[in-house]
């Protein structure tokens, strides 16, 4: 042993405080050399009944299925049919085109707020297709592609975003903080992390009732630092809840790089080990890998083997929200350099490599979706955009409780609505 009491104090360095810093800042050349991209197909795929103790290396690998040539390789290939692949592509493209239009709508003053999923569209789309109608997603605000994959009406999205008279949430909630129970999409809120434990409770309830529905929950890399994250994982582990707990590690939390959430010390997937549950680290820009990891975790959950933590390794290609300007804190060209590519392009290339897609069909799809989005958005604009139209102010006083008490009744009267 190196240490001894006598040596103590001798030649000790002064302590110093370590403040993590990203590799590059605006003006620097983007540098992703710290990121190793393992070959697609290289990770083994353990049986779902494998004990956690035999899977402790999984969090340090990266599950990838699509290789550079757009081929699906290795044991994690989910072997999906072409229709499913095309449904995924459609959902991702629809998300991207919709995001673009709504981002512009914000610039035009039609909405107070917007957030894009740019570069992360594979995750919601894949999970929406892989999970079942009765399952429940406890989403983050970058999960629009789930709703797209499940054909949530565009007009309802637009009305919510414009906070107009037909807003399905009746003007009570910030744009994009949707709730869509029928689509397996739990109510969003501005607070990050505070619904991760709801996913666990919902899953426990399903197990309590002897059902077969499972839950999936999402947080961002930055949000893993909240106590809620730990509490959700603890309950999931203790009661073996049938839940998939996901971290979208998109490298940034507003202006803070993932090192501020601890990424300099280990992977996010490794957090699973603290709870004795499997932790998968997955290429989040690889639609097939996302599908496959989700299916694996879902089957574990459905077989009463308990929860799985998945880190989706991805990149937030746009700003945090309409309130953000990412060029203030990272090189503007970073997104283009992201070593895992664009999830949409990669799935497209795969379909083309399969002979199940081509440039013409892609263009036609884009045109079709653009038209659909334009139509929905125009229809919503006809109802009205922010400030031009809003639900009846009486809605302000509804649903505080199941039944209003005298305060609500009096105040509604005072407000004259």
């Amino acid at each position, binding site marked *: 042993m190196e240490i001894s009491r006598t040596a103590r104090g001798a030649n000790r360095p002064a302590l110093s405080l370590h403040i993590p810093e990203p590799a590059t800042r605006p003006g620097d050349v983007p540098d992703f050399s710290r990121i190793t991209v393992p070959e697609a197909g290289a990770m083994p795929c353990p049986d779902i009944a494998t004990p956690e103790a035999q899977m402790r290396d999984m969090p340090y690998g990266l599950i990838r299925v699509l290789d550079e040539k757009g081929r699906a390789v290795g044991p994690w290939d989910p072997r999906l049919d072409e229709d499913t692949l095309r449904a995924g592509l459609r959902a991702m493209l629809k998300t991207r085109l919709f995001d673009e239009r709504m981002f512009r709508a914000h610039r035009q003053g039609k909405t107070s707020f917007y957030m894009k999923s740019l570069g992360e569209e594979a995750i919601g789309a894949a999970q929406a297709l892989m999970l079942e109608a009765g399952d*429940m997603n*406890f989403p983050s605000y970058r999960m629009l592609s789930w709703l797209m994959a499940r054909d949530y009406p565009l007009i309802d999205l637009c009305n919510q975003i414009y906070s107009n008279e037909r807003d*399905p*949430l*009746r003007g*009570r*909630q910030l744009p994009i*903080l949707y*709730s*869509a*129970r029928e689509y397996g999409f*739990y*109510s969003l*809120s501005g*607070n990050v992390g*505070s*619904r*991760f*434990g*709801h*996913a*666990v*409770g*919902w*899953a*426990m*309830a*399903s197990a*309590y*009732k002897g059902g077969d529905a499972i*839950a999936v929950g999402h947080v961002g890399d930055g949000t893993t630092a909240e*106590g*809620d994250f730990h*509490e*959700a994982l*603890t*309950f999931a582990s*203790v009661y073996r809840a049938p839940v998939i707990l996901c971290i979208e590690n998109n490298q940034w939390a507003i202006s803070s790089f993932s090192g501020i959430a601890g990424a300099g010390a280990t992977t996010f997937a490794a957090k699973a080990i603290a709870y004795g549950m499997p932790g998968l680290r997955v290429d989040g820009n690889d639609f097939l890998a996302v599908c496959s990891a989700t299916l694996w975790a879902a089957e574990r959950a459905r077989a009463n083997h308990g929860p799985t933590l998945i880190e989706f390794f991805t990149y937030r290609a746009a700003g945090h929200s309409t309130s953000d300007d990412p060029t203030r804190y990272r090189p503007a060209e970073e997104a283009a350099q992201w070593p895992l590519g664009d999830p949409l392009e990669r799935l497209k290339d795969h379909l083309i490599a399969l002979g199940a897609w081509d440039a013409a069909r892609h263009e036609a799809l884009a045109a079709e979706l653009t038209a659909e989005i334009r139509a929905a958005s125009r229809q919503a604009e006809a109802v009205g955009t922010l400030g031009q139209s809003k639900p009846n102010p009486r809605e302000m006083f509804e*649903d*505080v*409780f*199941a039944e209003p*008490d*005298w305060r609500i009744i009096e105040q509604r009267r005072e407000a004259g609505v």
Partner: protein
Amino acid sequence: MPAMTMIQALNSALDVKLGSDPDALIFGEDVGYFGGVFRVTEGLQKKYGARRCFDSPISEGGIVATAIGMGAYGLRPIVEIQFADYILPAYDQLVSEAARLRYRSNGEFWCPITVRSPYGGGIFGGQTHSQSPEAIFAHVTGLKTVIPSNPYDAKGLLLAAIEEDDPVIFLEPKRLYNGPFDGHHDQPLVTWAEHPLGEVPQGHYTVPLGTARVMREGREATVLAYGTMVHVCNAAIAEAGIDAELIDLRSIVPLDIETVIASVRKTGRCVIVHEASRYGGFGGELSALVQERCFYHLRAPIERVAGWDTPYPHAFEWDYFPGPDRVAKALKRCVEAVA
């Protein structure tokens, strides 16, 4: 009707509920095999199985978050927070999630959870086993807050709370668990068996939230209280020899404003009493409401008697606790004030 302590009455409510509603379940720290540190869940795990009544990790935020998720699924979870002092780690879940879920989702999801927690002082529990946090819940739109003062109400209110489709904070005055403590700590404890409200029906009944109980009618002044202070006020009224009307609010959200207003309009005088520290306490809201609605009937300043604006100090239990003497003094001041 059998005599029950408040503990037995609460236990009976839980028993009735677990027995009749397969979607009702209980969890919290030490509530399973052990039956809770105050024994409110005693015997329930044995009777209904660990699936219906089980221990949880020490994580108040996690307990409430999990309960909200279960509620969203369709269950009716009843959770225990071991001491109300320890409810604060769950405060964000209660305010940002439980209280807001129905509103923000336009009624797609809601939160039929009941959060039981022993609260209040009088047991030499020191700073962290004595606090009364009701004010920080009463201010939150979307939460209901209930505080029983006797076994009969405790059972009926708890059943009503559980059956609510909105989140309810159910604060149990732990000093009353075993008897109607009136603040005379140096006198022998009276048991619930000797109190009319210690008689509790075996089966199902509810006491609707938002209905106060007039504990004592009177003409000279109105005393507003809840929890342990109901009994302290009762003693103070008798000792002061004043014909005061004593109102046990029973729930502070929803509040039975009509009963309060009718009484103060009748008496023209009002004393408000709570254990929580005074500044920013729920007494301020009560005082404001009474003043707004009874201004022209008031013949004296509304008095507030409350815990001092200090943390709850262990050795000074009876110096801090607003006992019958302090209440009686305020009552006399109030009645003697000239209009």
